[in-house]
């Protein structure tokens, strides 16, 4: 499974980058989303994966024993997911505003700030 | 005994879900797909979940399972209605072998839905009362 998942992770990164290289603002943000998911999957993958043993202490026990999934990557990803939600929400709205003000979705045309005035 | 129940319920459930899947793939128009799937799946999932509740045989899990089923029963038809209705606005066509389309021309520009067309007989209950 790890092999396939690393392929998928690499694929997520690649498609994220590819989309970020497009002209359309929408694609760019989709690319960022894919990239973020790629990073999350990478944390998950490299934290080593365990099937069917969530890190929840059973009713009777006081500690986790035996095989269990590493809770740390999960906590990290959770934090990362939530943070990227905030950032993506902002980016999405920014995209809409930019479109409204610049009247285009074409990133190549959003360069007036770099023309010397 | 419980094993048998679980197997029966889950098998039936899986079957219905598979049906829904085949249906959504095969059906010729959107409305038919919605029609076939929403409920077949709901029924199928419900059955599988019941099997699940039987397996764990624990009150809190049973309540959770019933909660899921209730949620599904509550939301699935509403969702189906929403998407079906919205699709009709956007002009998604009925299958060409459909027989009736009573909705045709009933939506106004502002999405207000009329109960009858101008000039068409009003056969709603009050309408029929009035007509008589």
């Amino acid at each position, binding site marked *: 499974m790890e092999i396939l998942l690393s392929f998928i992770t690499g694929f997520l*990164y690649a498609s*994220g980058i590819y989309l*970020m290289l497009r002209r359309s*603002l929408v694609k*760019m943000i989709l690319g*960022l989303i894919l*990239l*973020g998911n*790629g*990073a*999350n999957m*990478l*944390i998950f*993958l*490299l*934290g*080593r994966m365990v099937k069917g043993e969530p890190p929840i202490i059973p009713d009777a026990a006081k500690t986790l024993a035996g095989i269990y999934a590493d809770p*740390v*990557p999960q906590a*990290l990803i959770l*934090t*990362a997911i939530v*943070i990227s939600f*905030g*950032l993506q929400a*902002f*980016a999405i709205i*920014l*995209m809409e*505003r*930019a479109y409204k*003000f*610049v009247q285009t979705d074409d*990133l190549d045309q*959003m*360069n*007036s*700030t*770099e023309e*010397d*005035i | 005994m419980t094993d048998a129940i679980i197997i029966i319920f889950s098998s039936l459930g899986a079957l219905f879900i598979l049906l829904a899947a085949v249906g959504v793939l095969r059906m010729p128009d959107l409305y038919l797909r919605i029609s076939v799937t929403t409920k077949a799946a709901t029924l199928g999932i419900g059955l599988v979940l019941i099997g699940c509740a039987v397996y764990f045989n624990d009150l809190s899990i049973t309540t959770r399972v019933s909660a899921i089923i209730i949620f599904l029963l509550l939301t699935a038809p509403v969702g189906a209605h929403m998407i079906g209705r919205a699709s009709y606005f956007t002009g998604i066509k009925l299958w060409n072998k459909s027989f009736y389309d009573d909705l045709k021309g009933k939506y106004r520009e502002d999405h207000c839905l009329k109960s009858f067309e101008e000039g068409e007989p009003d056969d709603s209950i009050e309408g029929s009362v009035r007509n008589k």
Partner: protein
Amino acid sequence: MNPLYIVLPVAFQLFTAVVLLFFWNKTNLQRGLSVAASITALALAAWLMAAVLQDGILVMQAGAWEAQFGISFVADAFSSTMVLLTSLAGLAVSIFSTSGIRSARVQLGFYPVFHLLLMGLNGAFLTGDIFNLYVWFEIIIIASFVLITLGGAKDQLEGSVKYVTMNLLASAIFLTAIAILYGLTGSLNMADLSIQVANIENRGLVNITALLFLVGFGIKSAIFPLYFWLPASYHTPPATISAIFGGLLTKVGVYAMIRVFTLIFIPDEFMLNLLIWIGGLSILSGGAGALLQNNIRRVFSYLIICHIGYMIAGLGLYTEVALVGAIFYLIHDIVVKTNLFLISGLIYKIKGSYNMKLLGGIYSSFPLLALMFAISFFSLIGIPPLSGFWAKLFLIEGSLDTGQYMVIAFITLGSFITLFVMAKMWLEIVWKKEGALPDKQSSTAYLAMPYAKRFALVFPIVLLSGALLFIGFGAEFILAVAKQIAAELKDPSAYLGAVLKRGTI
């Protein structure tokens, strides 16, 4: 100082922001609260700095979970210096903003976000946990996103699209690096990582991880060839906001880079050469860009890149002397860049333009302001004994020590371009008679302002100019601090000992 209190620079800013959020529509109250809070924050930071200089490294373990398991908060000389500078720049900007930010923008949440940005900066400086650093970085970028779009004029939005994209890309790369680091070591505590990474046998993987950190932080600190977002966006928001950006945001990237490359990844030959070339080319690119601009804020923007190059090159030299130079430059640059952007804001308030071609006439009508500008301009150029000089001296010494003559060439080039550009700016905006300004009323608007408002615009500049003079003439004190920082960076055993509570490492 009780080490428990080192969380205060962060907690206090958050508290301030929360209080400000409750007074959403009361703009004047927000202004007053912000200034009062900034003064308190400065006092707190000074207290922290004094405590660190006196007692050595202070460590707080959040949640009382011991290091490596809980999140460490570490105040050493480097981080406490950065916190102090942040608070200083924060105070200046806060005062300036009382007159520099219109009520409409205040109602869009300028003050809470501003204080949250300061919180993020303080957190990033103080944390001793790599993932926690990531989280602080996110605070910083989201707060900066909000500030850079605040009020949302068209060019602000266009600039911020680039700003946002590239910063998000940087975050993704940073996160990737953390993922690999955790996969390799199973740890997140920077002190612990320092030991763990040294023990990894597969150095190739370590080098690659280091590279990812380099690029992740590199984008944020605007080095060559990752700086593009900066000239595209820094000149678009109100000057008050540019000031905090220009002064602090890129520096936090530099801070992180210095921290990571002295504590966790000790650079090898390849990395050092890479850093040196990146530094040199940043100097060249920033300088080349600055030569061409007419908008004073764009000039400053490019100069930021140029001067970041000094620090990166200093890091690449990796001797104690060069690190002293880099740290000194960092300290000087925070103050001077903040002040320059504030100055640009003041000029805009007076003249209504950022365009050098049109500006002018400061010398005849505002001679004392011209004097104020001169202090910043010449500090930036590095006219001795003003602040920029000392850093350059150590950098040159460092590059001669290591035989990296390339660095000297780049530093000379960068310094010359800075000199030329700033002198030209002096000619254009101070000496020359003003041109046909687009918005003539604004120049009288400044004079018509109530005294308090003008004071709010000028006082922060005076404050920071004073700080600059202190850095220059009191270089002995700053150098002592910089030397202590460089020594702690070069030999992190004190850091490790303080965090991991192990006597000897």
